[in-house]
């Protein structure tokens, strides 16, 4: 029986940093995609936006993204958000103000990415650094398009990805 949790591509940022991590020409032969990200940005701050766009051919920069989220913040209640539309999807990763060598982790699950349905996805993200400047964020999001996904771009809201930031895209097959 086939092994279906297949690594498609891994990108690791080199010493010069990188403004984005891009996956293009993604094979349409899987059922679902899983994207695992370990990242940190050069911009000042503790918890900063990590942005994601998807598309077919080119990434979609239109206001075609919608999301719901639950954010856990130390010493605060869980905060709900989202509901509107935006031109990108925002999750989180740490900035340069947190302890050195601390990277955030994000997992994105993209079911049925090659279908003609609108794309409903999920993201779990954490920035943990042994201080109160941390967050846990669970998100549901939608790319409001019936196009298949063959391009994914990840980029920080400001600054560049630090060296050793890495992202791996996996393919899941249901047969």
């Amino acid at each position, binding site marked *: 029986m086939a092994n*279906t949790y297949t690594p498609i591509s891994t990108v690791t940022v080199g010493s010069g940093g990188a403004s984005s991590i891009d996956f293009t020409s993604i094979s349409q032969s899987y059922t679902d995609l899983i994207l695992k990200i370990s990242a940190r940005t050069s911009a000042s701050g503790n918890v900063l936006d990590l942005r994601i766009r998807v598309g077919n051919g080119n990434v979609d920069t239109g206001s075609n993204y919608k999301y719901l989220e639950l954010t856990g913040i130390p010493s605060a209640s869980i905060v709900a958000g989202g509901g509107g539309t935006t031109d990108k999807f925002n999750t989180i990763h740490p900035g340069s103000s947190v302890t050195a060598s601390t990277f955030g982790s994000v997992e994105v699950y993209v079911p049925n990415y090659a279908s003609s*349905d609108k794309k409903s996805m*999920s993201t779990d993200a954490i920035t943990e650094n042994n201080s109160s400047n941390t967050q846990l964020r669970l*998100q549901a999001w*939608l790319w409001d398009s019936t196009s298949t996904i063959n391009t994914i771009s990840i980029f920080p809201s400001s600054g560049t990805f630090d060296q050793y930031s890495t992202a791996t895209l996996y393919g899941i097959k*249901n047969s």
Partner: protein
Amino acid sequence: MPTTYEPIATTTLASAATSVTFSSIPGTYTDLVIVCQVAFVTAANEIRLRFNSDSNTNYSYTRFKGSSSSASSDRYSNENHIHIGSPGNDAVIGNSINQINNYSNTTTYKTVISRSNFINRELMATVGTWRSTSAITTIYIDNSGGQNITAGSTFTLYGIKAA
């Protein structure tokens, strides 16, 4: 490399149905993952899990969930199911991804970790327990209102193997 994440079965509804069953699940894996992509035909509802035809009150679950404006958490004891998501009846098919760890052992109760994402209703994280030491051989997915699940909804069962 050993195969560790194997598709066991997929059901794609050719026509609307109220439930989906995976039966005769082999006990040869370590964990199970169920990926559900679901919408309802006429009204929003809850999808839920049961195991081995047990519809008695042997289930409990704790969840937290959020809409665009509110977050909440709650728990339910002595239920006859585990709630794993709240699909709507809109044009968006959302998803519920569920992990069932150590499903085939005959010593411990079984646990479920669930994440569901229904953008026009709510997202939810749930942990559930089935108070049975029986190995899970059947998984039954239905909904609390007996409503029809939309044609095209898909349910895939994967097996995860430890080394």
